[in-house]
């Protein structure tokens, strides 16, 4: 097996692996529905809708600091 053939197999294996990762991610998103901080993913749309400078952030940086 020369280097080109090795590369081709490596490429194929990597592709297969990435496909698994992607499907895993889809499964994760739709089964968990919320991210690690407990926010429903769909709430994040509000970042665009309520984007005035004095609107409340969906997840605030300063909250984060207070918690610590």
């Amino acid at each position, binding site marked *: 097996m020369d280097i*080109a053939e090795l590369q*081709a197999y490596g*490429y194929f294996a990597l*592709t297969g692996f*990435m496909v698994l990762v*992607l499907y895993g*991610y*889809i499964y994760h*998103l*739709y089964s968990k*529905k919320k991210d690690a901080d407990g*926010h429903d*993913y*769909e*709430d*994040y*749309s*509000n*970042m*665009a*809708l309520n*984007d005035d*400078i*004095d*609107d409340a*952030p*969906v*997840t*605030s*940086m*300063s*909250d*984060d600091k207070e918690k610590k």
Partner: protein
Amino acid sequence: MENRPLEYDYTVAKMFMLTTIILGIVGMLIGVILAFQLAFPEVNLILGEGLAEYTNFSRLRPLHTDAVIFGFTFSGIFSTWYYVGQRVLKVSMAESGFLMFIGKLHFWLYLVGVAAVVVSLFMGITTSKEYAEFEWPIDIAIVVVWVLFGLSIFGLIGIRREKSLYISIWYYIATFLGIAMLYLFNNMEIPTMLAQSAAGESGIGAWYHSVSMYAGTNDALVQWWYGHNAVAFGFTVPIVAMIYYFLPKESGQAIYSYKLSLLSFWGLMFVYLWAGGHHLLYSTVPDWMQTMGSIFSVILILPSWGSAINMLLTMKGEWQQVAASPLIKFMVLGSTFYMFSTLEGPIQAIKSVNAIAHFTDWIVGHVHDGVLGWVGFMIMAALFHMAPRVFKREIYSKSLMATQFWIQTLGVVLYFTSMWIAGITQGMMWRAHDEFGNLAYSFIDTVTVLHPYYTIRGVGGLLYLVGFLMFAYNIYKTMSARPVEESELQNASPMGA
């Protein structure tokens, strides 16, 4: 500090709005000239024999592509970044003198870069690599401009109030990283003054000339990995960033599925990078790479349509807005054209189809239904949405905008339909042969047959340019239109009659 009334600062966004419009006009005007040159060769001499060197098709073509890509489109990307970035991160550029400085420096150095590109391409100084024609000194300047763009993205993220990054920010970051990687690798070159010939001569050629570090098949592979992904990270990723912000905001509707936006993001990132091989079908690159290029191109339909359908479904139950607002029309037609060209591309990447399509006008038709219908429409829509907010005035004229929409839509349709017919006719004529295998036609036979279609394309392009001038005028007049209150700017943009 929190008590002081704070406002977003759109200074840099406005500066880039200006270059978006000016370079758009320049680039598209050159496009129209090119189109008429192909139909009527006399146009090559439009300014007389003496200046033919500067006005011929081959001198102007890279000026067109680079003006519309690196001028119009990238100005649009920068302009929307300096607008959207602040808003979804909920932080104003006025809060950081440093970021303000970087933003302005970004703009001014960009202008210097543009000037250098225009002058050098007019003089015929080029590396001859498509979309990477700039010689090394300009490449270095472009890298600096890009680093400044990166600084301003990550700088703003660094001082944000909103902890989570909105999906558009992901796409802007991907644009930054993608282009940085592509540009650096494809432009690896050695100035000729550092090289030595086999005969031992050194200091060959002008100081600004260089030779690519790649040659032959490798050069082709790197070039099309770059070329195709320039489409990905210049014409797709940042434009998706725009639509994910501007369509929900203008329509007041939450994205249909935020989860779908996340996974189409990763899908797009994963698949796009491998599809470039489709530019090199039936060439000397390894067969498995060609096949992979085809396969990944077809898979690319999924994440592309994931974003586009997500946008169309965002309008679910709100279709009356499409009828009522020309601004929403631009975006909805934009995402429809996005779906359309991301279906067309994969079809062209299938080997047997490519055997007919490659090197023909069908490819040019494909490029332009994407860039005119999707990229152009989306950037104009973004600027239309931004204008009332950065100038605090209503859009000058709604009816002008609606007229522009229909003129340009007609232009795009004329452009791509004529190129389809021309391309497929060309492809069929080139391969036609008699029973003994002699070619049935010579090249000039195709030229004669294609002439009417080239004329139609020229007319279509001219209509698009006329529409773009209407857009420029509308934005210009907006600067002195009726002032509006903050409350009118929440969602649908205020427009004058």
